[in-house]
């Protein structure tokens, strides 16, 4: 007990992928046990900003003990803006890996959709790299033509793009891309904004497909203690003894059928 602690991890490099979207490689022990769909809690060095920022893991390199995070700067004077100023050689305090991650093994022998929307796109990359399935169909939804990570997805499966403004791929959302290309799957993994996940959950129910969704909520502790980031569940949760699960600890990935969106 007591062997985990906040780590002052080393920033290896940082680059801009698109307007407001940053990619950072970090040398951290968290990489050793990290799984796709998990996240790390990153802290700023601003004494006024106390809470960690939960950031999903985009890529894992266990051998070299490094993780990649791709995140959006959410505004002026935000924690993410401070992260975006870090350069190789700087340090970043963090804890992790946190959360449960995607059940990669369930895809074996199945046709899979790997769906990411907006800033829910990044965790889909490591999932795409690790997943073994009969048909790997990556569907990524963006606001506009800044289709970050698209080339890297193309090295890992069939890629279908949707954009809200129609500037790349199918105009509309990720399900519009699925319909437009007449894609079919037996299992879905998805990460993105709640309205997208709600639509995907409904689609999965209609088609009777197994579906896992990665949820997001404002967090405080990030480790399951404060009960800040719960989601509503269809069945009584064993830990909470009510219809609430902790997104940081019991999630962020849940079977879509078990959560109310």
């Amino acid at each position, binding site marked *: *007990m007591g062997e985990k602690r*906040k780590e002052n991890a080393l920033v290896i490099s940082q680059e801009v992928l698109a307007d407001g979207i940053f990619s950072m490689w970090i040398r951290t022990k968290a990489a050793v046990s990290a799984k796709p769909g998990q996240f790390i809690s990153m802290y700023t060095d601003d*004494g006024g900003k106390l*809470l960690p920022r939960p950031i999903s893991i985009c890529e894992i390199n266990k051998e070299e003990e490094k993780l990649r995070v791709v995140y959006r700067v959410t505004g002026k004077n935000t924690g993410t803006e401070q992260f975006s100023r870090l350069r190789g050689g700087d340090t970043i305090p963090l804890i992790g890996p946190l959360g449960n991650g995607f059940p990669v093994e369930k895809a074996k022998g199945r046709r899979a959709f790997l769906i990411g929307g907006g800033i829910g796109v990044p965790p889909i990359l490591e999932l795409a790299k690790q997943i073994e399935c009969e048909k790997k169909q990556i569907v990524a939804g963006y606001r506009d033509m800044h289709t970050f990570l698209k080339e890297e997805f193309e090295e890992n499966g069939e890629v279908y793009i949707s954009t809200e403004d129609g500037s790349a791929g199918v105009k509309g959302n990720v399900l519009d891309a699925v319909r437009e290309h007449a894609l079919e799957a037996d299992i879905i993994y998805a990460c993105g904004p709640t309205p997208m996940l709600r639509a995907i959950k409904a689609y999965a129910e209609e088609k009777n497909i197994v579906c896992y969704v990665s949820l997001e909520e404002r967090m405080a502790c990030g480790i399951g203690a404060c009960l800040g980031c719960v*989601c509503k569940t269809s069945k009584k949760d064993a830990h909470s003894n009510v219809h609430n699960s902790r997104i940081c600890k019991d999630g962020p990935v849940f079977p879509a059928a078990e959560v109310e969106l």
Partner: protein
Amino acid sequence: MNMKVNIAGVEWKNPVTTASGTFGSGAEYADFVDLNRLGAVTTKGVASVPWPGNPTPRVAEICGGMMNAIGLQNPGIDLFCERDIPFLRKFDTKIIVNVCGRSETDYCEVVERLADEAVDMLEINISCPNVKEGGIAFGQSAKAAEEITRAVKRYAKQPVIMKLSPNVTDIAEMARAVEAGGADAVSLINTLTGMKIDIHRRTFLLANRTGGVSGPAVHPIAVRMVYDTAQAVKIPIIGMGGIANAEDAIEMMLAGASAVSVGTANFHNPTVTMEIVDGIERYLEKNHIEDVRELTGAVR
């Protein structure tokens, strides 16, 4: 050097505990801290039956702190006794169970249920700003606070700590009221009621609209209230409110606290409680103070 403190007849190995609601029942933090090194673990509030709590968002950051409106989500006393107490009993630390309720009957039911459980102290939460009924209703009237204290004391086998709200005109009056009602100790401060508005969405940031403000931003308010309370009552005070390091903890003790609780700071640094225990020890050593109890109320 002595780090032991005696709070209402219960000896803690050091004056550091965790603020209710920030530490669960310790299980999540056991990966980060050695629970054996805490003076006590104060649990998340528990009620007679499971409570689902408030809708989300339940938390928000502010400059130098945070707001929460969890709404006392808890698994109910039965599961708590079955799972959380046996977990904590594996460690050499004192167990303080925080008790919440909506009515006098609710509080008394939980307290009675805990009477024969292996817990060391009870902390009665009459100060949660985030639930509509109960909680704060008892914490903002001296008469109601005294009455609930007296009621709880009839069923309690363990020493009773009454947790006070800062959302009152005169906290010393509240402390005197619970002392008159038979409280063995007081703890303060619970969170200050606040509000945060999202200017882009033009709505409240917390689903509950209001929430409890905590963190370093409230520390000076807490120090002042602990000081005021120390001048008003003889029972020991557990001081809390924005303690983020050993210096803050020492300050709280100098103002009159016999022990301190660490809350929001756990979110910023999961191992902070260990650093605070070590830091208090170093301070005593450096200043040639033999006994940590000498700090309590040393500034008048």
